[in-house]
């Protein structure tokens, strides 16, 4: 198992390198010249060439690529702005900041958003899903199922503005979404993110309700669950010990996907609520043809996705001894 995980990690690095290649190609396919942006109003061909040179854009693409890759590992010293320790994604063209520190700057918001929403939707979604499965066929089950069907069909770009319009602008119950670091002011952190959390977790929770319910019901029909009942174990024990464990596998699979998309920057969410997280950073990097930043965000998001995959695999192993011991 450990070997399997190690192999996954190695594979992930290969994927990341390939991804960098694609991102590089994509960037050079873009119909814009980042140097032009930096060059400003009084740009001359000389100045432009100069900028090209300082950015290293005059080198061949493979050469640039190699410099970039090695910088990731060893850090780089060839920047006018100063040295750039590993992992060095370089300096943003647009803000002249180190990409890595920019990423780390934006990360807390993204993390907060993802963590809060995840806690909420897991709690609510799994709770309602389990309840529905427990009371299969009852009114509660039917109303949960119907409700989750409708809610999970909503989109952030609809529910978000709607929630803002009603809860913030019209009734002023909640505050405008805003990010305060939790270390600065936990209360402000909480109130500032409550609407995005609520909206995200409503939509996600509804999906988890459906999923938890169906995978639980599927598990309850497993033969080994029947065996447990035949042993005289109580309904609740069987439900929570036997069925629950197996139903976690599909849930964790989806959770891995959801988490990786949340952690890699929930672009639409951040857009909707005007929160400057990684998602916004990603959009900005595209807008400003900011190659180092774009690469940074892409690689970071991809790394998060791959990491989530590996964690999911590890979770499988944790849950299922068949995986662990093979």
């Amino acid at each position: 198992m450990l070997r399997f995980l190690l192999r996954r990690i190695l594979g992930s690095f290969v994927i990341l390198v390939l991804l960098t290649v694609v991102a590089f190609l994509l960037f050079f396919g873009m119909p814009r010249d980042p140097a032009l942006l930096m060059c400003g109003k009084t740009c001359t061909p000389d100045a432009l060439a100069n900028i090209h040179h300082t950015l290293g854009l005059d080198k061949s693409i493979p050469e640039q690529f190699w410099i970039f890759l090695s910088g990731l590992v060893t850090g780089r010293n060839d920047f006018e702005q100063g040295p750039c320790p590993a992992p060095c994604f370089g300096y943003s063209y647009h803000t002249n900041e180190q990409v890595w520190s920019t990423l780390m700057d934006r990360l807390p918001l993204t993390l907060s958003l993802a963590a809060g929403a995840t806690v909420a939707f897991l709690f609510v979604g799994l709770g309602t899903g389990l309840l529905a499965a427990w009371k299969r066929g009852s009114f509660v089950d039917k109303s949960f199922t119907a409700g989750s069907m409708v809610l999970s069909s909503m989109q952030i770009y609809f529910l978000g503005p709607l929630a803002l319009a009603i809860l913030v602008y019209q009734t002023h119950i909640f505050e405008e979404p805003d990010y305060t670091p939790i270390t600065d002011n936990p209360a402000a952190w909480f109130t500032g993110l409550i609407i995005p959390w609520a909206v995200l977790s409503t939509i996600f929770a509804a999906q988890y309700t459906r999923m938890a319910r169906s995978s639980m019901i599927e598990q309850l029909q497993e033969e080994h669950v029947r065996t447990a009942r035949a042993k005289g174990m109580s309904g609740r024990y069987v439900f929570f010990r036997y069925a629950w464990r197996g139903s976690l596998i599909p849930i964790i699979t989806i959770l891995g996907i959801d988490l990786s998309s949340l952690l890699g920057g929930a672009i639409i969410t951040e857009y909707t609520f005007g929160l400057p997280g990684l998602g916004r950073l990603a959009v900005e990097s595209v807008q400003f043809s900011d190659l180092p930043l774009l690469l940074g965000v892409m690689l970071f998001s991809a790394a998060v996705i791959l990491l989530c995959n590996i964690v999911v695999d590890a979770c499988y192993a944790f849950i299922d001894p068949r995986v662990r011991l093979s």
Partner: protein
Amino acid sequence: MTSPIDIEGGGTSVVVDGDQQPKSKPEEAKQLEGRSPGQLMWIRFKRDRTGVISAYVVIFFFVVGLAAPLIAKLYGKDPYTVFADERPELFDSAGVPLQPNGGISGEFWFGLEPGNGYDVFTKLLYGIRNSLMISLAVTVATVLTGIVLGVAAGYLGGKPDQLISRVIDFLLAFPSQLFFIASMPVVVSLFVSPRDETPVYVRVVALIAVQWVLGWMSLARILRGTTLALREREFIEAAKVSGASPVRIIRREILPNVVTPILVQSTYMLPNFVTAEAGLSFLGVGIVEPTPDWGQMFSKASTELVMQNDITYMFFPGISMIIFIVAFNLLGDSVRDAFDPKTAR
């Protein structure tokens, strides 16, 4: 709704065309013309009221989309007329309709869009039309790709399978939204002609292409699994023993059997593509004004102008999309149940 009939041999989680029910149906015994699994599915589906209603709703949306120009003609307006300039008396100088509720009236059924004052009713019609067409195209493209690559990987195994699986892994590691945003301008620029407006079709093609590139993997994976499972089934060996060529085996033995997962997956994929397309347009990298589009309407709806002055506007794209997605998802569930009555929800 379906009872948990305990049928021998649990069956894999992959929905291979299951015909595990040995129950002979006496009433069918009379018929000499046999019923194919597809026909049985159809019969089962027709009994499912939710499914049938959802199907009607979905069909309604497609009809609306198809007939949008006709409906607009009967209604007497088009989604491109700038009513803020044509009928300035209806707006203030910032383009907000003066009448309450976004200017809903007998003349403008769904009101007028704040800003340039487009007619919301026709805009929604055309928006549905464009969004559905794009999503349908993406679905078709991804399904075809998924079939070709998934079935190839599953059937051929070995090196091709390795290669395709690695490609799938690789693409799945892509931050897809970010990739969409980053690549849309690139793809568009591949088509740009210098003196003409970036034609709408270029954006549409780009949207389709970009979503297609990152959209086919899940289906391919499922089909690969299904094909792998099918390959183990003995009727494939029977065909091989008879000397059938791989092409024939894929065409005659495998493809008819993956129709079910394809159909089920497609019904789940299409609404996803609708929302993804809307999401891109929402972010401003998809379809842009004045081409009507569902997502672009959301984008408009989330502007301060609309949120502060005309909240009514948001509900038209919002509610219609929810109805569509719910109906489509219910339809998907029903289709799945009809194929695979074993799954108890």
